[in-house]
């Protein structure tokens, strides 16, 4: 009988706590969103699964010595998000942005999503139960960058205990871009604006594409070294892609390497979805702020495009592509294209929207550098 009692004492049933059950349900909810709704499944599936695994009572998978505790070292050290960023760099074509560099300003404007949210998070302290430090606020704000690895990198430095909620919010809202953005885009533009057709993009030479990551890196090194790890690895990936002499490295960085790291990163993020860190009033605040951040960013991008049309009316920009400045590559570029085609089915904005889209990635990495430099 001793054995049976010992065994019963070791079962999950006898040790389940309500909040662990809730967190496992959250994990399964994320799996549902990932699989059924196809919400960023590459990340949300491992994150959801990691949440389930780490909340199994007695198993200790996320505790010291458990598998997920080892994987988390890859986030704590920054290695995983930086390798993902390198892989994303190897997948990114800067061509459309280089062809029309002023779209970079749209990517800049959309970062208001970050800084506006930072202010909002601090203001939320007015509400009882919400208690965000300056660091917390900065980590939450980065959700507005609409960039997964950047969010995880910044959160792991500034507010590791919020990492789970922030990553979940970032990827969820990225998946919700087709729902969040269109109403804002329609509200802020007139029909004529949405009908603007843009001039065909000029040809960008291979040399320009090879030089660009170097330029970006030098500028970062000189002006904002705190963004250098993120932007540096991004540039490395992009250089590997464009230089044409190390295709085998490029292929591996875009495929097997990023796939393996994605699984590990997702599981490790999921291991931070523990009850005591996630089932708090603050998480609600994070979810609300995340939605606001995306809305702010979208609006800023669109308004910036309209401003640019006022300043230089001879070479107009369709303001819909301003919304793509939040990054969320390539989802928000597709949304811009789709909303544009509602007005004119023959207006192909996709390539034009890819410019602000990848500019948004640079913009949020720059913003991340500002936060890492000024918030400690």
């Amino acid at each position: 009988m001793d054995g049976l009692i010992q065994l019963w004492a070791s079962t999950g049933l006898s040790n389940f706590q309500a909040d662990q059950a809730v967190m496992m349900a959250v994990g399964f909810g994320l799996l549902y969103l990932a699989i059924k709704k196809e919400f960023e499944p590459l990340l949300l599936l491992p994150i959801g699964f990691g949440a389930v695994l780490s909340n199994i009572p007695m198993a200790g998978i996320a505790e010291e010595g458990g598998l997920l505790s080892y994987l988390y070292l890859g986030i704590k050290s920054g290695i995983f998000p930086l390798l993902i960023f390198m892989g994303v760099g190897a997948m990114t074509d800067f061509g459309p942005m280089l062809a029309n560099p002023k779209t970079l300003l749209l990517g800049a404007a959309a970062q208001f999503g970050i800084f506006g949210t930072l202010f909002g998070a601090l203001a939320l302290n007015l509400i009882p139960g919400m208690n965000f430090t300056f660091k917390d606020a900065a980590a939450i704000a980065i959700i507005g960058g609409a960039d997964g690895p950047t969010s995880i990198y910044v959160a792991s430095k500034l507010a590791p205990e919020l990492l789970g909620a922030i990553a979940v919010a970032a990827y969820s809202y990225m998946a919700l871009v087709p729902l969040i953005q269109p109403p804002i885009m329609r509200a802020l533009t007139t029909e004529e604006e949405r009908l603007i057709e843009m001039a065909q993009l000029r040809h960008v030479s291979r040399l320009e594409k090879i030089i660009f990551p170097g330029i970006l890196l030098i500028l970062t090194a000189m002006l904002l070294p705190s963004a250098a790890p993120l932007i540096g690895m991004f540039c490395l990936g992009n250089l590997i892609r464009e230089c044409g002499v190390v295709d085998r490295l490029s292929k591996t960085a875009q495929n097997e390497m990023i796939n393996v790291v994605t699984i590990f990163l997702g599981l490790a993020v999921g291991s931070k979805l523990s009850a005591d860190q996630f089932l708090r009033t603050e998480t609600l605040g994070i979810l609300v702020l995340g939605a606001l951040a995306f809305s702010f960013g979208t609006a800023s991008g669109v308004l910036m495009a309209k401003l640019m049309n006022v300043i230089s009316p001879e070479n107009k920009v369709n303001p819909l592509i301003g919304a793509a400045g939040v990054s969320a590559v390539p989802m928000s570029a597709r949304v811009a294209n789709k909303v544009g085609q509602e007005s004119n089915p023959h207006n192909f904005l996709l390539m034009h929207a890819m410019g602000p889209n990848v500019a948004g990635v640079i913009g949020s990495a720059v913003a991340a550098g500002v936060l890492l430099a000024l918030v400690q």
Partner: protein
Amino acid sequence: MEPSLSELLLPGLKLMIIGMAIVYLFLALLVWIIGVTARLVGTMSPAPIQHTKRSSLEVEKEEAELVAVIAAAVECQSRSLN
């Protein structure tokens, strides 16, 4: 003693202004440098005189094929990893 709200909000406002300024400056500088680079590159390697003979029809057909291929590839792989 927790910091009072204004003690939190004021730095937040400052950070917002400084941050947006830096992001704009950084990317605006990048816009300028990209332009300069494009001109330098264009100067150094004169635009290749190609595309002379092929009809726009041919080009269109090729582009259509390319689009089809890319669409297929994108559908097959769906690299929405970000």
